[in-house]
């Protein structure tokens, strides 16, 4: 015993080594279950480990973020520019699509109208509300002359008032000095359509006091007393009335053409052929 006491450190060390070897031997291989000290230790430590691990991850993310900040900034700038370019492109595509649609309708109308036509773009507009006229980018060198009829696929726009070599001024239907022979499509009663200063609607004055007309009636060109061909749509009746003394029957007509959104028009040449 005295020897053991004297060499207690050696004995304890050997014992520990033996125990460890024994433990290693017991726990070697792929175990399906943990021992109770392992479980106890693991369970006690896991919350702390989890918190530390999360904090470490967060710190790592911050660190990585700090390290990446200049790269991200550059990438962000580049993406922003790309996005702006895409938005602009999208706008251009939408505009091209709308223009394509309008031109397609115009071409379809031009083909079916049986007239020789030429397309023109509106490039200017009157600024005072007294006159309603626009300038188009076709002129005498394209064969335009005064009094040619101007239309869109929606209906009559007006007529050419005067031309220069490269442009033409078009008198719109809504101008107080324009006048088109018109008729009610349903009843065939005739009259004259003119514009009204300051109003976007037209005024149809009938030749007969007994004209049969009602709101909703479609008004077309009559082909009488003007250069406008018969049967072209002018607009739709929104109101019917009589003059102060009841001598003249009139109708307020909403034009078929949206004159506020006039971008492309067709000019009709007399004589037919396309």
């Amino acid at each position, binding site marked *: 015993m005295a020897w053991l006491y004297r060499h207690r450190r050696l004995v304890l060390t050997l014992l520990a080594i033996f125990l460890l070897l024994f433990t290693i031997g017991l726990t070697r291989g792929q175990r399906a279950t943990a021992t109770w000290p392992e479980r106890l230790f693991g369970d006690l430590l896991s919350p702390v480990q989890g918190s530390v691990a999360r904090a470490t991850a967060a710190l790592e993310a911050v660190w990585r973020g700090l390290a990446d900040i200049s790269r991200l900034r550059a990438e962000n700038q580049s993406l922003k520019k790309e996005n702006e370019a895409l938005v602009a492109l999208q706008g251009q595509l939408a505009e091209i699509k709308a223009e394509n649609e309008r031109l397609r309708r115009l071409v379809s109308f031009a083909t079916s109208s049986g007239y020789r036509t030429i397309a023109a773009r*509106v*490039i*200017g*507009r*009157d*600024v*005072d*509300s*007294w*006159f309603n*006229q626009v*300038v188009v980018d076709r002129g005498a060198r394209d064969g335009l002359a005064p009094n040619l009829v101007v239309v869109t696929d929606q209906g009559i726009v007006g007529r050419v*008032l005067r031309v220069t070599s490269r442009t033409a*001024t078009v008198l719109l239907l809504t101008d*107080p*000095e324009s006048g088109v022979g018109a008729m009610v499509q349903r009843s065939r009663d005739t009259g004259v359509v*003119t514009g*009204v*200063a*300051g*109003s*976007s609607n037209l005024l149809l004055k009938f030749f007969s006091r007994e004209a049969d007309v009602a709101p909703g009636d479609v008004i077309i060109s009559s082909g009488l007393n003007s250069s406008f061909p018969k049967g072209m749509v002018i607009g739709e009746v929104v109101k019917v009335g009589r003059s102060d003394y009841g001598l003249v029957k009139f109708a307020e007509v909403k034009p078929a053409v949206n*004159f*506020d959104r006039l971008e492309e028009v067709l000019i009709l040449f007399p004589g037919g052929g396309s």
Partner: protein
Amino acid sequence: MPGWRTVIILFLISIIQHSFLALLAPKWPLELPLLVTLLYALRWGEGKGAKLGAFFGLLEDLYLGRYVGLHVVGYVAAGLAAGWAGRRFFRENLVIFMGLIFALTFFHQIVSYLLLYVFGFPADLLAVLSQIAWPRALVHALLAPFLYQPVVAIPLEKKARLQYLG
């Protein structure tokens, strides 16, 4: 004789009005050349106002005017009236300034109506006042505060400073 730069600026104003504003917002009752004429005349008096009005009016008439001379007469009248009103009433007060722009725009529309009436243009006075003159005068008056500083107040301050120095 105005310098080339002035002439180009005036052309640009006219083009912006006819081929940009009028196509973009045709129902917006703004007549930029008239407004510029009024502001210029308020600042510089009848003579220069009338000259600018004549130039702008001629541009308008040449570009789209059906009654060539109508715009010249209307703008010159507006320029003369604005120059006179500027001397008589204008005291660098924003409310007076807006009121003057309103009244002068209205005056121009009445002059135009009378001229057109004389030449047989079919327009009803009541419709003209309610649907053309009134909205235009209102828009011009509302725009006046934004143009007050650059067009009127700054040049006046500069003139006062020059007088003080000189």
